[in-house]
């Protein structure tokens, strides 16, 4: 389309198009009487659409923010962001959404069914649920002095794990100080043991200081012997009255005698895990030495 320039102003020109229409176009150095083809029609401030635009844009923006937020909220609300496992004997898994609302509790064994019976978690915050479940476990006798509890924190978000670990501090302190419960905290990278300081009454048989209680630890690399067997305990209701602090197999006080089978007290003989090891172990008559085909 060709346009004839009829009138020239600083900003614009009036041109006559071949199709008979008169237009205002931006003046790009045009001259009256010249024929041009590349034009740019003058923009106009159309008041009504502009005010409509002004009104609609913030509304649209607000609406989209709302929709997106709501969508994310709904999406997050139904998605497991982190879980806390409670292991006493009843084992449960508590799943929470991003905003820490509990969305599901799984009973991982029969005792857990008993623990959760009648418990309503809907809409509750995960920290309160953990707190309440621990209280229920105490009330129902699953958790008592000398027993232990494992809290496992599972989430892709380390901060989430740390936050909930911190939120549990009060409860952990209570369990440790008041209830003398051993607490194991597992955030899947590190395992932290919180062992109550046992108020040991000085025993006439023992000259060791209470600090020595920790020599025979079940944690770390010191020995391979776990002494969790509740029977050989020196405290709590199952206290067997015998502190075996001198009978250690390692460290400076090592007596040189591993007493796994001979030094069985009443507790061990009834339920120790180590007894079967001695009686049924195949280590002595291993096939590797006697009947291996590799020898020839």
């Amino acid at each position, binding site marked *: 389309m*060709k346009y*004839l320039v*009829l*009138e020239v*102003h*600083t*900003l*614009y020109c*009036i041109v*006559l198009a*071949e*199709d*008979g*229409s*008169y*237009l*205002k176009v*931006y*003046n*790009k*150095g045009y*001259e*009256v*009487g*010249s*024929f041009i*083809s590349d034009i*740019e029609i*003058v*923009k*106009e*401030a159309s*008041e009504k659409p502009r005010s409509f635009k002004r009104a609609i844009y913030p509304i649209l923006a607000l609406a989209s923010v709302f929709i997106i937020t709501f969508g994310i909220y709904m999406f997050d609300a139904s998605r497991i962001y982190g879980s806390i496992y409670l292991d006493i004997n009843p084992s449960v898994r508590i799943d929470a959404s991003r905003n820490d609302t509990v969305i599901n509790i799984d009973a991982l064994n029969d005792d857990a069914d008993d623990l959760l019976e009648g418990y309503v978690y809907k809409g509750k915050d995960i920290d309160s649920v953990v707190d309440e479940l621990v209280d229920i476990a105490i009330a129902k006798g699953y958790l008592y002095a000398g027993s232990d509890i494992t809290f496992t924190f599972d989430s892709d978000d380390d901060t989430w794990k740390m936050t909930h670990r911190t939120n549990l501090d009060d409860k952990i302190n209570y369990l440790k100080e008041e209830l003398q419960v051993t607490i194991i905290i597992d955030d899947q990278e590190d395992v932290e043991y919180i062992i109550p300081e046992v108020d040991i009454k000085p025993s006439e048989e023992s000259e060791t200081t209470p600090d020595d209680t920790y020599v025979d630890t079940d944690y770390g690399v010191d020995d391979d012997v776990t002494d969790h067997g509740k029977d050989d305990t020196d405290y709590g209701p199952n206290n067997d009255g015998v502190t075996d602090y001198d009978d250690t197999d390692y460290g400076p006080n090592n007596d040189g005698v591993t007493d796994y089978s001979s030094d069985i007290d009443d507790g061990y003989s009834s339920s120790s895990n180590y007894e079967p090891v001695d009686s049924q172990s195949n280590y002595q008559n291993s096939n590797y030495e006697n009947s291996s085909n590799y020898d020839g």
Partner: protein
Amino acid sequence: MEERQFTKDLKKAKTDIDVADELIRKYMPFIKAETAKYLGHYASESDDEVSIAMIAFHEAILNYDSDKGNFMHYASMLIRSRLIDHDRKEVRHKANISLDEDGDDNDPLINTIADPSDKVDTNMRLEATKEEIAELAKVLNDFGVSFKDLSDHSPKQERTMDMIKKVIQRAKADTTILDELLETKKLPLKRLVNDGGERKTIERHRKYVLGMLVILTNGYEIIRGHLWHVLKGEAV
């Protein structure tokens, strides 16, 4: 005081292109300075970049409101951003244009390069066109019609345009209509329309039809040639 006047003008310029034109004339040094700042060298009014800056300044006038802060800052920002847009487009277009490629109207670009011998012709033709336009402006002025009026009231609907074309054909077929027009300085509506519907449409576009009929009178050969598509055809 001056600032208040400026704010007033700015508001008026949004809807009145002549007020905008006046503002731009006043602020042309600013527009050129902003362009020069961007280019890093002097910019003259004939530079493409100054046109772009000027259009950006007009855009600033249209879009400005007080919540955008100081107008000059806003205009300066818009000028800069339009010049950047232009540069980007230029880079893309410059990439490959061959003279054998089609220009406008499918003419190879090479044909549009001015032949020096044509220059005299071109100048003469330009002068002749200017004269026709000046004459047309003068005659239209007698009718109380300006080019600006025509651009403000140019028919946009095809149906309207078709009706106007019919009227043009009638006037072409009966030259006494044009004589009457020039004599009375009035549009002989009764002789141009067949029915009430047509009358209404033509009345609404009285100035435009008047302009077309004036062009049909003697002395506007170049403009008539330009409007060949509109003016062709038989009377109906």
